């Protein structure tokens, strides 16, 4: 009983600084969002000058960017301070001799930070969703911007959890703090770049064809567009160079053989499925990395125990 409550307390005490820094960061982000929407937005609108909206939209962008990329810090911390440091200095080994099995040690080390990340997401994401939609007239971004896309749904939490698991795995495999930090951060950045480039492919796009030029709503996330040349899709005819009066335009597009226009895009209604697919991918990787971390740890410590028993 005392071990059940004692273990989380040990983890909390050991990583108190990290917890305080993280809590301060999340609270500052939330407070910033409330302040920007309750105070800054009105004063920006009232000032009536050309660039006043930047006073609102720039800090709004910083908040979502900072929260989106906070998984870099999580990966670095998990790889070095949380796991790597104890394996490197041998305090982990000491803990395992005190009646605490390596599996329980790792479980406690991962469960608490995971809980903290989920709680932070549960506070931040709803507040950000409200803040992002509260003053759209002062913003120049769109739902498909990398940071906005992640911060408006569970994907931002999944990035944190994935970084935690990847950091732990890197530390257990490498058993050294700084290399684990470097590898964990590099893996997470690569994964993030890959997912950001391919997120539009994880859900079927909508294609619209029309005899006249297509005007998509501002919120649509356009993937590709072009013209139909004798009914066939074509992306390489630059019809936008046709200019002049309506008759001149018509002759120019006729010369190019243009019979219509097409556009593929994601409407804003695709936000939830796309965000959930990305969350699913990240949580799958999280599960695999966690399993690999436990397996590696058990394999190593089990082998060591057998050796010492012989």
């Amino acid at each position, binding site marked *: 009983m005392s071990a059940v409550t004692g273990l989380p307390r040990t983890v909390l005490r050991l990583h108190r600084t990290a917890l305080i820094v993280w809590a301060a960061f999340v609270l500052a982000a939330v407070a910033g969002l409330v302040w920007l929407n309750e105070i800054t937005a009105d004063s920006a609108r009232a000032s009536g000058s*050309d660039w006043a909206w930047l006073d609102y939209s720039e800090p709004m962008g910083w908040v979502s960017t900072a929260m989106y990329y906070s998984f870099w810090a999580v990966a670095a911390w998990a790889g070095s301070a949380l796991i790597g*440091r104890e394996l490197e200095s041998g305090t982990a080994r000491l803990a395992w001799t005190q009646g605490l099995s390596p599996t329980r040690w790792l479980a406690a080390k991962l469960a608490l930070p995971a809980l903290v990340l989920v709680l932070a997401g549960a506070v931040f994401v709803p507040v950000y969703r409200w803040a992002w939609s509260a003053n759209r007239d002062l913003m120049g971004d769109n739902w498909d911007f990398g940071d906005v896309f992640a911060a408006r749904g569970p994907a931002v939490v999944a990035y944190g959890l994935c970084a935690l698991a990847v950091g732990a795995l890197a530390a257990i495999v490498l058993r050294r703090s700084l290399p684990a930090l470097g590898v964990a951060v590099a893996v997470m950045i690569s994964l993030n770049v890959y997912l950001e480039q391919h997120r539009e492919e994880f859900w079927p796009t909508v294609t619209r064809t029309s005899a006249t030029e297509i005007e998509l709503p501002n919120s649509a996330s356009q993937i590709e567009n072009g013209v139909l040349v004798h009914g066939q899709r074509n992306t390489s005819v630059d019809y936008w160079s046709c200019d002049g009066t309506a008759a001149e335009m018509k002759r120019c597009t006729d010369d190019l053989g243009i019979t219509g226009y097409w556009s593929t895009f994601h409407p804003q209604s695709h936000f939830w499925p796309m965000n959930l697919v990305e969350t699913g991918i990240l949580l799958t990787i999280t599960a695999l990395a966690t399993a690999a971390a436990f397996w590696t740890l058990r394999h190593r410590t089990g082998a060591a125990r057998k050796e010492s028993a012989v």
Partner: protein
Amino acid sequence: MSAALTAPTRVHLTRWVVRLHRPALYLWTALILALAAALLWLAGPLADAAAEAWQRYNACADMGPCAYDQDAILRYKDYYEYATYAVLAVPFLVAAWSGASLIGREVENGTARLAWTQGLSPVRWLATKLALPALLVTVGTGALVALHRHAWVAGDGRIDTAKSWSDFATFYASGPVVVALALTGLVAGALIGLRRASSFGALGGGLCVTAFLWFGIHLLIPHLWSTVTKVTPMAHNVGPSGNGISVTQGVITATGARIADAHCTADTTAQCQAYYADLDAVSWFNDYHPAAHYWPLQWIATGILLAVTALLTVVTFRGLRRRTTTPEGAAV
């Protein structure tokens, strides 16, 4: 006697630092070589292809189809951006490594203390640890910055979408400021590494100090050299002119008073037009740094950062000496 003894000892100590940080040395060399190759490629084939595409595009008629290599233009733009951010990341990499690995780790696990008992004084230990990395950081970062400048010059005036010298990422990545910042990062990492008990805390602290100093010099740079003022009549209807790093912009009224105005940058909206009419504004003024101020701004900022780095170095050594001598004094 001392001359005969110190020479071999110094060689031995340098070799010891190299052996201890061999992975970091390999990684650093690989990073510099890879980035240098990328920058040379950018300055050569990529810039040439983009320049040719722009030439073709500009030769096209206003109407009708235009055949030009759009991919070449975008490729130069993308790779230029990646290379620029890679160069800008160097001071942070150095600070992180210095705080966590070079100093922090040895303080954390006690090997630093062990070394000090082996006839190596703390001051010599730290001097040896900082000297060789400082040399390698200066040479490596200096080479990158020179090559980045070379790649920027290759695109300037030939590629219409090439960044201006006053674009902040370009300004920092192609000048000596970033070399000084890398050295600041090295010392900042060491300073925090000696004070913090955990290497991860030292890493974070080193990064924060570097970011803070960068931010500080960024705010300071526009004020390090006197600006040029350009006055344009209000009739132009396009806002203040003069390209570069702008410090103050605004309007001059009929009475000759200067009114700095950060918000209405051109009388494009009815609100701004009414605002300027009320003020009786007759012309625009722009206090700015033209391209000719590039080198003075770079070198003065570099000098300031080197002075700060020297100061941090002194603080680091004094702190170390005080810490390592006090316990002995207490024991007496």
